[in-house]
């Protein structure tokens, strides 16, 4: 009888191991990021501005040229000869040979770039997904290979800075080529910049886009944060980059990946 118990226990154990390994949190090519807190780079004053982020799914890889080509095939209005300039500027998909041909010099598995926010958003919505928020993206990007908070490791921050200081290359490598972080998300740093759903939430405290108040606020805030936490420097660069973006803007180093709510 004892043996019976042992065996059934063993079976249960095996089953539960198999079950636990089954990537129930993975919906196809997405990875679950557990709930967490994201502290924005610059804080206006004494009020707590940290953002509670619910658990969510994020694409393992940035969206590739090939994947975007499939989308464009199904959605003629997003072909580069059709697209409305309000939604994507003249550099949109300019590295592709034509509307439906990538061309010899374009790696199909490289992240798609020269993409506007509107185009990225439309792609995501066509799959029932959305773009990640800044808070979500930053939360997922904090992790290095072994730790959810990689920023605690100065080496990790150095690596990111090193990438930022490299000029962007015309021939991007395939997705998955940089590194896989703690959550199983690839290429969060080191491949392309990525669009976020609410990139426009950067730089909102200024009275106008024209006056100098914006920059003053930006640099004041950064000064005080930077003094205590050097590790935020790459985050500052991303912040500055997002502040410079317009929704129809495209560039060869800016791509995207999708996110999704859980439930």
């Amino acid at each position, binding site marked *: 009888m004892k*043996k*019976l118990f042992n*065996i*059934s226990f063993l*079976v*249960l154990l095996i*089953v539960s191991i*198999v*079950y636990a390994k*089954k990537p*129930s949190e993975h*919906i196809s090519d997405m990875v679950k990021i557990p709930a967490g807190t994201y502290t924005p780079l610059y804080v206006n004053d004494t*009020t*707590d*501005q*940290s*953002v509670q982020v619910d658990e969510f799914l994020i694409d393992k890889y940035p969206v590739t040229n090939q994947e975007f080509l499939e989308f464009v095939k199904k*959605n003629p*209005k*997003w072909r580069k000869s059709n697209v*409305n*300039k*309000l*939604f994507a500027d003249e550099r949109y998909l300019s590295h592709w040979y034509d509307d439906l041909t990538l061309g010899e010099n374009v790696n199909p598995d490289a992240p798609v770039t020269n993409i506007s*926010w*509107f*185009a990225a*958003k*439309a792609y995501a*919505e*066509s*799959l*029932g997904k*959305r773009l990640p928020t800044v808070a979500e993206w930053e939360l997922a990007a904090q992790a290095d290979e072994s730790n959810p908070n990689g920023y605690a490791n100065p080496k990790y921050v150095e690596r990111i800075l090193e990438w930022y200081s490299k000029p962007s290359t015309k021939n991007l490598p395939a997705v998955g080529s940089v590194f896989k972080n703690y959550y199983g998300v690839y290429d969060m740093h080191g491949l392309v910049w990525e669009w976020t*759903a*609410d990139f*426009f*939430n*950067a*730089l*909102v*405290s*200024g*009275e*106008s*886009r*024209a*006056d100098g108040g914006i920059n003053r606020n930006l640099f004041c805030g950064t000064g005080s944060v930077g003094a205590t936490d050097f590790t935020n420097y790459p985050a500052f660069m991303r912040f500055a980059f997002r502040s410079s973006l*317009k*929704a129809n803007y495209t560039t060869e180093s800016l791509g995207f990946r999708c996110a999704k709510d859980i439930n």
Partner: protein
Amino acid sequence: MKKLSVIIIAILILTVSVIYIVATETSVDASSRAELQDKKSEKESCCSSDMEEVSMSELSENSLYQLNSDWTNQFGNKINLTDLRGRKQIVTMIFANCTYVCPILVNDMRRIEDRLSKEELKNVQFTLFTIDPERDTPEKLKEFAQNQNLNLSRWQLLTSSKSDIADLAALMGFRYKKENDGSYSHSNIISILNEEGELIHQQAGLSQEIEKTLNVIRNQNKQGV
């Protein structure tokens, strides 16, 4: 005999577990498919659906109304963005719980209204788009209009989905961010759209000089931003 029963029980347990796993997996699949369907059937924003043909003449390439999004006004009536065609629009984005900046922005728009003649006002509409669709129900927007003494024959307040609001804001270069206390930080920009919905002028900052804006509104010809 004992050995046999052990094996049978083990197989039974295995079978049950496998069934359980398969069942949960299919239900996950089914629910994610259902979710996808839901998302699809939801009103799609500008960019995910093909634009419907507009009954009037075709919209210009630069018309913000290319977004073709659906909105609800302060009376709960549904309108499409293209319904704003035909009159010049003086617009900004607000949230009704805003205690400081939004009333000033609205007041800036009212200053423009006060300076236009009756004749000029016939060709002009004042539109406020909310950036806080969760709290700004049509009732709430109506209440805001009443508190601000807005003449609802010339003013309208519109709400929509988060995604459609973000699209419109993006086209107008209007930046906003939700703060932890539920309020929003946002740009202070008043935009002027011509009869076709093209952005022809923007006035940035609070309590600015309105002469230039007035000139643009009065001028029948399109002007650059």
